[in-house]
């Protein structure tokens, strides 16, 4: 899939699909040691209060990760939902703590559903996913986290706040809503910071992944492209009247193309053509 993207074999519509982006990125990460990319990337998640996932607990380098793509969840009294990914994290020792991380990935679009006051359960997409996730986690005796993965530069406060309000409206305060945010751009920045000698076995794979994110413009600022030199263009605009010529003389000096010698010719020729037109004899008569 990455090769198809990088070689322009995907249609614009396909390139814009968040499912394909999810597949490209997590399809690669699934085959890498978690502590190489996945865990450092997850360490960038933030809640509305600026909280991160506890790195010493969840993001231990020896944690086992199971990927469950597009699981369908329908817990009792909850609306059906399909997050893009569920990550099951387990410590290597049997019987130890587990976490389930639901990931709702977005690229160019926003949430697929918002609050519906007619519904007795959460209808907002994130609220619905959290509703199911919290229930699943309770049954599985693990700790739930929901991550809203977007192309934003900053935490999309309004969207997460709306999800919280829908959850609180329907579920009260018995189970608090919790949603973290992560950006695809954080992954791009992370990949840029990794040197080849750190990942000798995965250089090409990570390069392709970084190229894919760059192609989709999922990066933070990465410098300026080198400008090419401009040649002189002998083109000038010449004002139609004397009093305007002085104005345009100043304009030429302040031009953003100081080397372009362009002038717009007077409108004389247009007027001349106008004068050559025959007089129209037609009149409308009652």
């Amino acid at each position, binding site marked *: 899939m990455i090769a198809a993207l990088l070689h322009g074999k995907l249609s614009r519509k396909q390139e814009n699909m968040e499912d394909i982006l999810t597949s490209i990125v997590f399809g690669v990460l699934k085959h890498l040691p978690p502590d190489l990319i996945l865990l450092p990337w997850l360490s960038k998640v*933030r809640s509305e209060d*600026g909280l991160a996932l506890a790195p010493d607990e969840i993001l231990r380098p020896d944690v086992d990760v199971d990927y469950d793509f597009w699981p369908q969840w329908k817990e009792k009294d909850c609306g059906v939902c399909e997050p893009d990914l569920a990550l099951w994290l387990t410590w290597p020792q049997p019987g130890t703590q587990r976490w389930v991380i639901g990931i709702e990935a977005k690229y160019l679009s926003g949430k697929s559903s918002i609050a519906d006051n007619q519904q007795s359960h959460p209808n907002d997409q994130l609220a619905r996913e959290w509703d199911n996730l919290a229930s699943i986690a309770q049954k599985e005796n693990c700790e739930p986290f929901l991550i809203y993965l977007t192309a934003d*530069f*900053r*935490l999309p406060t309004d969207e997460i706040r709306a999800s919280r309000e829908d959850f609180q409206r329907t579920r009260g305060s018995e189970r608090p809503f919790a949603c973290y945010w992560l*950006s695809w*751009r954080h992954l791009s*920045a992370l990949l*840029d*910071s990794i040197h080849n000698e750190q990942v000798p076995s995965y250089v090409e794979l990570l390069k392709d992944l970084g190229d894919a994110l760059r192609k989709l413009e999922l*990066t*933070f*600022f*990465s*410098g*300026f*492209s080198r*400008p*090419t030199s*401009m*040649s002189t*263009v*002998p*083109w000038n605009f010449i004002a139609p009247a004397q009093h305007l010529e002085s104005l345009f003389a100043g*304009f030429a000096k*302040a031009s*953003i*193309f100081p080397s*372009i010698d*362009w002038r717009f010719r007077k409108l004389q020729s247009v007027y001349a053509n106008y004068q050559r037109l025959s007089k129209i004899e037609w009149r409308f008569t009652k």
Partner: protein
Amino acid sequence: MSDQGKIIIETFQQARRFCEQVALLIQTTNSVMDEHGWVSSVGSAVTHSSSTKSADEWLPYFAYCYFESKERRGLLPFLGVLFDYDDEDSKVQMIPEPLVTAGWYDYGKDGKREAYILWHAVIHVYIPGWKADGSWVEAKPNEVFPKKFGKLSSLRCRSFALPVLSLKNTEDLTRLVIDPLLEDIGAGTD
């Protein structure tokens, strides 16, 4: 297509590409500042004119972003990218290349600001003898800005500038611009 026409097309394309990269720089700045509790406070990033009487302003002269924090209402940090900024009326020293400038305004204890926050991000080039070497300078805005900008209510402003092309990536932006800004703000009035 004539060669000359091609040059004009390429000039505009190049200018638009530069604008896109400046936008990315500003969005990245917003993201990093947000992580430190400073929220973007002005929605737009440029100002320009659509009038035939101000055609030179069809393209912006500079881009900007401003920040605010509920905890530190008396401060207004900013970042500006000056494209070919010039002010012939005020005879500012011409910029030799595009600059990135950052700094902060100090509005004192009451924190009352002007109604419009616009030109504040260009103050650095109004400070006599300004340099683009990353060194901080401090000025009283009402003393350095021309009167046409109106009376400002801030007590002082500290700023610095660098050639924008010295920033190659987010790491440079953070290390050379945002970190020094956040560090200097630490010394500001609360």
